[in-house]
C-alpha cells in the first residue's frame, strides 16, 4: 500500500503550486513562474497594443527591445517624439486613446470592421465647446479639440482604417482591461470613453447613464470583440491583461477602494475564463505582479495608485523572461549601423556639384 502523500493529487506538483515554495520562500522580486505563456511572442511578430493606460507600457517595452510593435497610425516623421505624444501618436497602435472597457473595445472594433454604421446617430454625436469639437469616443485625443465636425470625423475615419489594418496585419493583439464603470448615452446606447462633463461635453442626467458592467455583460462584449478579431484575422493571438491601476473615482456609490476591488476582480475573472476557454487567448498576470500582497505594495507610488517605473520594469522583465523560458530565442544581434558608405557617397556628389559649378 502506498503512502497517502505519494498518491494524492498534490504530491507530484511543481514548486509553483505551493505557496511556501513559490512565494513565502522568496524575495518578492524573485518570485517566478507566474506565467506559462500559451504562445510565443517573438521579435518578428507584429504586436498591436490597445486598452487602458497601462497598455502603453507594453508598447514602450516592446519597442525598446526591438520587437515589432505595430504602429498602424504613425505620427509624421518630422514631429519630435514629444510632439507626437502630445497628439497621442505612438502610445497605442492606433490613435484610439485609452480603451478602458470591454464595451469600448467592442465599439471600436465594430466601427472599424464594418459591423456598425458610422452614420448611425450613436456615432455622430460630437461635443462642442467654444467652437472646438471633441470626439466622445476619445475626447482628449486632439489637444484643444478638433477644428470642425468634418475634421473630427475625418480623423476618426483614419483611426478606424488604421485599427482595421492593425487587426488584419497583426500576429498578436494585446488588450489591457481597465474598468467596469462607464457612462453611456441613454438614447443611443453608445458608451463614452469618459464621463461627459469631465474632460469635455456637458453632463445631462436625462441623457447620460452610469453603468457598472457585470461579469456576464463584460464576458459577452469581450466574446463579441474576440469573434470580430478572429473573423478579421483567423491567425491572430490575443493576450489579455488587467490594469493594476486603481480607479481614480467611482460613481457606484461604494467606497473607491471596494469599487476598485469589484472592478478588477470582475475583469480578472473574465480574462481568466476567456483565456481558459478559447484557443489563442492568453492572460498575462501584470495585475497580480503589481497588486498582490506578496509584492508588498512596492510597485505603487505614495498615492497607492500610480505604478512606479520599477514596477513597470518588473512586469515587463517578467513578461520577457517567461517568453524566453518557454520559447527560447538566441540572443539578438545589435541593430545595423546606418550606411556610412551611402552617406559619404552623397557628400562626394555634393562636393563635385559645387566644384563643377564654382571651381575656377
Amino acid at each position, binding site marked *: 500500500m502506498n503512502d497517502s502523500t505519494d498518491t494524492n493529487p498534490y504530491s507530484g506538483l511543481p514548486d509553483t503550486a505551493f505557496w511556501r515554495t513559490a512565494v513565502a520562500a522568496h524575495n518578492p522580486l524573485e518570485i517566478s513562474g507566474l506565467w506559462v505563456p500559451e504562445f510565443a511572442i517573438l521579435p518578428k511578430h507584429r504586436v498591436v497594443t490597445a486598452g487602458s493606460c497601462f497598455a502603453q507600457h507594453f508598447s514602450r517595452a516592446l519597442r525598446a527591445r526591438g520587437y515589432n510593435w505595430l504602429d498602424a497610425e504613425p505620427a509624421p516623421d518630422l514631429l519630435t517624439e514629444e510632439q507626437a505624444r502630445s497628439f497621442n501618436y505612438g502610445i497605442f497602435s492606433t490613435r484610439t486613446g485609452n480603451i478602458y472597457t470591454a464595451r469600448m473595445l467592442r465599439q471600436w472594433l465594430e466601427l472599424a470592421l464594418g459591423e456598425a454604421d458610422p452614420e448611425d446617430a450613436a456615432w455622430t454625436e460630437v461635443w462642442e465647446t467654444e467652437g472646438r469639437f471633441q470626439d466622445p469616443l476619445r475626447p482628449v485625443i486632439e*489637444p484643444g479639440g478638433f*477644428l470642425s465636425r468634418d475634421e473630427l470625423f475625418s*480623423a476618426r475615419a*483614419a483611426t478606424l482604417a488604421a485599427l482595421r489594418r492593425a487587426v488584419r496585419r497583426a500576429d498578436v493583439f494585446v488588450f489591457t482591461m481597465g474598468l467596469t464603470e462607464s457612462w453611456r448615452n441613454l438614447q443611443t446606447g453608445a458608451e463614452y470613453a469618459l464621463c461627459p462633463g469631465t474632460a469635455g461635453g456637458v453632463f445631462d442626467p436625462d441623457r447620460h447613464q452610469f453603468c457598472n458592467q457585470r461579469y456576464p455583460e463584460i464576458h459577452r462584449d469581450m466574446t463579441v470583440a474576440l469573434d470580430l478579431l478572429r473573423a478579421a484575422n483567423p491567425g491572430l493571438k490575443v493576450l489579455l491583461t488587467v490594469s493594476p491601476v486603481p480607479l481614480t473615482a467611482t460613481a457606484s456609490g461604494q467606497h473607491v477602494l471596494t469599487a476598485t476591488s469589484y472592478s478588477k476582480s470582475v475583469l480578472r475573472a473574465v480574462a481568466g475564463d476567456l483565456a481558459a476557454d478559447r484557443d489563442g487567448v492568453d492572460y498575462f498576470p501584470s495585475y497580480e505582479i503589481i497588486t498582490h500582497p506578496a509584492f508588498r505594495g512596492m510597485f505603487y507610488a505614495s498615492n497607492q495608485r500610480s505604478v512606479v517605473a520599477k514596477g513597470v520594469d518588473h512586469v515587463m522583465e517578467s513578461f520577457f523572461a517567461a517568453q524566453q523560458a518557454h520559447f527560447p530565442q538566441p540572443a539578438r544581434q545589435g541593430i545595423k549601423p546606418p550606411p556610412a558608405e551611402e552617406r559619404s557617397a552623397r557628400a562626394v556628389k555634393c562636393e563635385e*556639384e559645387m566644384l563643377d*559649378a564654382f571651381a575656377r
Partner: protein
Amino acid sequence: MPLQDNPSICVFGDSHIACVKRAVDDGHVDIPADRLEFWGASGPDFRGIHLRGGRLKPMTEEARAQVQMISASGRDSLGAGDFDAFLFVGSRLRSHSYIVPMLWRARDEAGYLSQAVRDAVLDRWLTGCRAYRAARAFAATGKSRVFFSPASFMNDQIMDEKTIARTINQEASASARADLWNGVAQRMGRDGVTLIAQPEQTVTRGCLTKIDYASERAVEMRDPVHKNGAYGALILEQLFLQLESEAVGSQPRADTPADTPTEA
C-alpha cells in the same frame, strides 16, 4: 518691365546653388540685378556655417575653404544688410522631407492629419532647419528681402523603382501639391520669407523632378538630388518676377492719395 532699382542679390545655400550658378554661366536667364553673388558651402561643409551675431560665418576650416571658392568677392561672412535680396536655395530644407511624405499620406486612408498636426509638421520642417532660421533672422531685420527655394523633389529615373513605389505618391495631383506649397508660402510669409516653390513644369510622377532638369551627370553619378541650369533659371525667373512685382507694387500709383501733394 525692368526693376525699379536693380537690386543686389545674394544666392546662398549648399550644393543646390550650383544649378543657379549654371543658369547664370550658361546664359539661361537675363540678370536684372546690379550685383549677383553666390555664397555657401556644399553639403557636409555647409553644416559648418552658423549664424553668429546676426551674420552667417563659416566656423570650420572646410567651410571657410568652400566659402572662399564660392564667393567671387571673397566675402567671409554674410549679414542681412549686405544685399537687397537673399535667395536661399536648398540649404538642407528638403521638399523630400515635407511635401513628399505629406503627399504620400494623402493616398492612405489612415493618413489623415488634423490641421493642428499639419501645422506642427510644417513648423517643425521649417524651424528645424538651421538655414531657415537664418533666413527668418535676416528677414526680421527688415534690411533685405528674403526668398527661399527648398531643395527640389528627387530626380526621376535615378531612384530605384522599389523605393519610388514605397515612398512616392505617383498619383499626387497638381492641386494637392499646390495646397501644400500654399501652406508653406503662408507659413514662411509670417516670418517675412517668400517661398519660391518648385516650378510645376519640372514635376513628374506626383513628386519627382523630370530628368530634363537633373544635373548633367545625374544619370552617370546616380545623383537623385542635383539639378541643372535650366532648373536654376526657372528659380531665378521666379525670383525676378517676385522682385519685379514688388517693385511695381511699391511705386505710387497715379490714382492713389500718395500721389496727391501733401503741401498746399
